[in-house]
């Protein structure tokens, strides 16, 4: 049972995957910034701001729920 107290919080895993996804999406969208996708409302660059949002949420979760934080 005592080992369970050292279980990495679920929120940390959520943060890790959101951070990775956010950086992938944001990075990919910045590479193609001058050629926005031909989707509806593509000129608003939703990939950029959604990637940024995921990166921020993921980063916050990783920081707040990092292993070893009391």
């Amino acid at each position: 049972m005592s080992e369970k107290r050292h279980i990495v919080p679920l929120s940390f895993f959520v943060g890790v995957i959101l951070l990775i996804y956010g950086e992938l999406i944001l990075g990919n969208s910045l590479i193609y910034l001058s050629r926005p996708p031909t989707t509806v409302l593509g000129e608003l660059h939703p990939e950029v701001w959604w990637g940024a949002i995921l990166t921020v949420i993921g980063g916050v979760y990783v920081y707040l729920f990092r292993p070893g934080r009391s």
Partner: protein
Amino acid sequence: MNLFSFPLAFLFFAAPDAPGTTGRLINLYPVDYAIIAIYFVMVLGIGFYLKRFAKSGEDFFLAGREMTAWVAGLSFVSANLGALELMGWAAATYQYGILAAHWYWIGAIPAIVFLGLVMMPFYYISKTHSVPGYLQMRYGEASRALAAVMFSLMTLFMAGIDMYAMALIMKIVLGWDINFSIWISAMTVAVYVTLGGLFSAIFNEVLQFFLIWLGALLIPILGLMETGGWSGLVARVHQNFPNGDYTHMWSNMGNFTDNPMGIHWTGIVFGLGFIISFGYWTTDFLVVQRILAAKDIRAAKLAPIIGGYFKMAVPFIVILPGLLALAVLPFHLVPESQVGPGQHSYNEVLPLMLARYCGPGLLGLGMTALIAGFMSGMAGNSSAFATVWTYDLYRPFIRKGASDEHYVKVGRWTVMIGMLISIGTAYLVMEFKSIMDYVQALFSFFIAPLFGTVILGMLWMRVTPAAGFWGLLCGVVSSITMWAIVKIDHNMLAYIALSADAKDMAENMYRALWSWLICVTVTLVVTMFTKPKPIEELKGLVYGATELPSEGHLPLWHRPIFWGVLSLVLFVILQYIFW
């Protein structure tokens, strides 16, 4: 996958190679494939990490009963929110309009609040590991065995149907080979559930919950920007479909023929809102298992209520895309069976909307959300089946008194073997589509009578073990009989569903209502002539014989009842807004 997605699953079971269907709807880019691959690596990694914590039976089957209210609540709603449901209800919204939202509001919220405030105390205090386990303590082995066998069959079939539906969707949307999709997803789920048990299933369900929201949320956001808000959406829907009423929930329910679903409001309120939803949300072990993993009774009461708030919000990412499709798509979608060259079916609503608004990266996120939804449904069925098989069939009837370590081993093997059986079911469904009808019927036979049996057992000490068994059996048999009667003579629909114009969904609802009434009536009658258990044996199981912890000392906002009542108020407000 659950009772609510079953009526929609038929949408997916037309021939995948029907003339006119495109080879694939969406082309993925390398970044999208990377996002999908990372998801698979992540869930497997979580499974390997959690293996060290899933040693005992309580760990493997009930995640150590350590989950907080938030984790248990998110897992509870996520276990219900499969990808088939996401795609199916978006498709149903395109076909029936906002009426589909009933399945998320009246078809969920009252039952969820009831589960949290009334039933969870008894499930939790009894320390049962499953719903059949509760029946054994309350009524005896016969009731447990009947429930366990039916539940085991349902979960195995449902996991297989989930698998096939996912593979079919991946073929239609992405052009992936069906066998590849089935085996990759099944083996991934089998590995991480075998390793980490319910811990893995819950962790990945919560992960899936975040991915679904973040993957699907862009569609309603960008869609409402395109239409100019809700009023713009409504105006465009009326312009595109001047003869249909797609944006009212109750005002067109006074007559079976006034609404596209062919349902009367009594069917929605009493059939869906009471019997079917209460039957599913309070007794389906797949969702209840997540709450049994809560760390204490307050968390167990609060968890489903937390889940209920998110369930109430799901129409934003499921129903709204369907309505937006009615407003913005430049072509009309058609039933699967009528797809011609250049046309698209209702099923393709969500992928079409995804492709409309999402470029590289976001497409991968959206597809990962769908894949995650399917896999978490399979994991949920897998973990629930392992628990029911090991504790409710293997331990009491095949090998009693073995060590906890032995049962954990049996649980792990059950996951793997159960998954292989489910794969077999997936191939069987591929060959014989009508099996889908029978599995849907199987679920509907059972869920309403089970609710009657459980709720009477929880609320009235006098109900006897014999009455519990016979009530459940008679309820199930009566439901089977009504189903068969309508199959043999369709005119009987006018008696069972109160109208010859009633559609399948209406028939299911009324049949659930009658079978529940029959179950309750038989239970009460048999109770009068049989002997109840002594009160000492009912402690922790029944109202009146159970000491329920008081919450009077807690501030109002810490009490589950406050949040439960608030969710009901919000639910009523939503009905008024979308009347």
